[in-house]
Each structure stands twice: as C-alpha cells, then as structure tokens.
C-alpha cells in the first residue's frame, strides 16, 4: 500500500522543476560561449532575458520546498531531496548569473577582434557543460558514479584557467593596446572557472541526497 500519493507526486514535481532549472542554466552557460565565439549579440541578449525565467523558477522551487517542509514534515531521503533542491538551485542560479555576466561582456565587446584564437575557453566551457549535464543525470537517476571524477575535471578547468590567464597577461604586456579585449577574456575564463566550482557544489549535494553522506568535492 502506498500512502501519501499526493505528497509523493509533489516531490516528483519538485524534482522535475529543479531539472528544468538546471537544464536552463546549462543552456545559458553554453549559449554564452557560443555568443562569445560568434560575437552574436542577439544570442547574448536572449541569455539575459532567459535569466529572468530562471530567477522565477528559483522562487517557485523554493516555495514548493518550503510548503513541503511545513505541511508534510518530510523525513530521511525525502528530507535530503528537499534540502538538496533548496541548496542546488542557488548554484544553478549562480551559474546562470555568470552566464549572464559573460553575455554582458559579449555585448560590451562589440566587434573588436579577439586577441587570440579561442581554444582553451571553449574547452573550459565544454568540461563545465559536461559536469552540469552529469549532475542533472545523477539527480534524475540516482547514479552518482558519474560524479566520481569531478575533482579531476575541476582540476582540468583550473589548469586551463591558469594557462589562459598567463597567456593573456603576456599578451597584455606585449601589446598594451589589447588590454580591453584581454581583460574581457580573462573575466570570461574566471566566470567559467566559477561555473566549474558550482558544478562541484551541486555534485556533492547530490551525493548527499542519494547516500546521506556529506562529502566536499573541489
């Protein structure tokens, strides 16, 4: 016999909303780098508009969590699920904010040529995309094995960030007139590095949700 059918449906609905929010945040982050590579102002503006929807989703999810906590007094894995949802929506929101910051950089850059071909930045973006995608998969299926190598993936992003930073500093010293564009790219890289950190936060929360163990990935 299954009791509390509506409650269980509400929990499933909540998880669906969180997945949707995560999907949108991931899409924003991906589009931000596409807009940067293609100097696509239209796409950049679309990201900024899309973030308003993500903000609304965050409030909606938070309200659902609060209502479940107040009315259903969830326990054990249900409690961990709700706690995890409340935590990770902040990370998803931060990811979409960082994507928005990148979009604003794209709008500010206009048509000025990039000081260097974009190689490491798309690479960083790809890795963080993969991390967010795996978070969503693990959240939906409970399979946390795919999160095991997050520390290594985050290290890769950090190493790429270091490399980009050194390169951009060298370029700025050699060609001071490029400082504006180099500065923009440096910020983009920094934002991508932060997105990787948020993906790690999300992953450790999902591990907690599934296993009950608190483990910091970084």
């Amino acid at each position, binding site marked *: *016999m*299954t*009791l*509390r059918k509506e*409650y*269980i449906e509400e929990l499933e609905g909540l998880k669906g909303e969180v997945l949707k929010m995560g999907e949108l945040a991931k899409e924003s982050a991906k589009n931000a780098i596409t807009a940067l590579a293609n100097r696509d102002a239209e796409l950049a503006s679309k990201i900024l508009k899309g973030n308003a929807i993500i903000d609304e989703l965050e409030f909606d999810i938070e309200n659902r969590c609060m209502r479940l906590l107040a009315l259903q*007094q*969830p*326990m*054990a*894995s*249900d*409690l*961990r699920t709700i706690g995890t949802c409340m935590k990770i929506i902040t990370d998803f929101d931060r990811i979409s904010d960082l994507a928005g910051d990148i979009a604003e950089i794209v709008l500010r850059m206009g048509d000025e040529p990039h000081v260097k071909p974009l190689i490491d930045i798309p690479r960083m973006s790809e890795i963080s995309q993969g991390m967010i995608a795996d978070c969503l998969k693990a959240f939906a299926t409970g399979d946390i094995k795919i999160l095991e190598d997050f520390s290594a993936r985050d290290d890769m992003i950090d190493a790429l960030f270091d490399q980009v930073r050194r390169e951009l500093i060298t370029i700025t010293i050699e060609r001071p007139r490029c400082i504006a564009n180099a500065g923009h790219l440096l910020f983009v890289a920094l934002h991508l590095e932060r997105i990787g950190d948020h993906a790690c936060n999300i992953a450790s929360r999902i591990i907690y949700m599934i*296993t*009950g*163990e608190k483990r910091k990935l970084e």
Partner: protein
Amino acid sequence: MGLIETEDLSVLYGDVPAIKRVNIEIEANKITAVIGPSGCGKTTFLRALNRMNELNGARTDGKVLIDGENIYNGNTDVNMLRRRVGMVFQQPNPFPMSIFDNVAYGPRIHGIRNNKLKRIVEESLRKAALWEEVHDRLDSSALMLSGGQQQRLCIARALAVNPEIILFDEPCSALDPISTARIEALLRELKKDYTIVIVTHNMQQAARVSDYTAFFLMGELIEFDETTRIFERPKDKRTEDYITGRFG
C-alpha cells in the same frame, strides 16, 4: 554499557509473540524513542522494562538487565522495580483525590510523612513544571485540572518516588499542541536526572526530543541508532519506508 540492556527479549500473549528477540542497549540520561506502526509491540516492549506485562498474563522470555541485574530473575522485588522504573501513560490518569494527595500517594506508601512529604510534593511538582500553576490550590481535586496539567501531575506523581528510569507511553497523544510542547520541554529537562524511554506515534516528536530512536515492525526491532541518523539516513529500507510515510 547501557543502563538498560535486553537480551533476546520476547513477550508472548498466549502463543502469539508481541515482541521477538529484542536486543537493545539504552543509555542513562538519554531519551530513547520507540516508534513503529500500531500493533508493532511498542507498548509491550515498554512494559517489559518494569514487568508490567505480567499483569495481563503475558509470558516473557530472555533478559532485561538494569545496571547488569536481570529483572526477571527470581529474587527481584517487583514493587521496588516499579518504583525505580516509573511509568506515565497515554491517558492522564490522576487519582480522584486532591492534587497534593496524588503526588503524595507513592511517598506515603513508603512511610514518608509531614514536612518531608510536603517537600517531596513541592519538588516533584516543580520538576514537572506544574508548581507555579497549582501551588495555591493543592487541596483541590486533580480532576479539575486541564488534560495537559493532569499529564504533568502524573509525571510529578511518578517523580515523587524518586525513580531512575521513566517510561512514557504516548504521553502527548491526548493533548493539544501547546500542552504537548510543554511536555516535550519537560522531557528534555528531566533527562538530566533521569533515563527516559518514550513510545510515540508522532515521528516529529521522536525527532525533536529523543537522542536515540528504536524502530519496531511486527514485534521486531528493525533499527536502533542515534535519532539524527534514523531520521536523516536510516540504514534499513523498512525504516525509510515507514518514516517517509510510504507505508504505515
């Protein structure tokens, strides 16, 4: 080592076991909650700890050790045992006499009189957080008190004989939320001086007040652990299903 330990404790009504081979260690000065669906043997388990089941003809196998001594061995003085291990029931059950006489009942049986008796009554009422409300009407009937006050009076009555362990069987289920909150605050206060075992069907109450939680199902002790652990990440699927309300 626990203050109370059971070894393969079983209680049978006729041929039907109500609890089966329970092994548990209950620590001193802690609150241990017993939860589980109705009929799973919570009350039977609790009553086994001061040999109350034999009052309704149940058979008990195995051991209950208190301070290392098996209370089911031949030479246990059952009256002394029940003084040491007090009990508070679901329905407040004050005697139809004055507030004072209710609390004085136990000590009087033990020959205490006069000033010492008055002192014990006051102390017990204070410990039960009832003194402020009743000190100027100790002679009025206990039956005039509200349900929550009656329950605290029953707690005072249990405290008056200076027990070590107090067993509570769903002490709040007949009370309103405010009286319930009072009793919960009182339990936390009492655990400094007493060891408490509480049966409750209210899981949130178990989560709020207890240090350890035991989950029973069909007479078996399924899981026993720190309360935070039981409610955050129980090990057994059956515990998980019960506390998340997947069955009940």
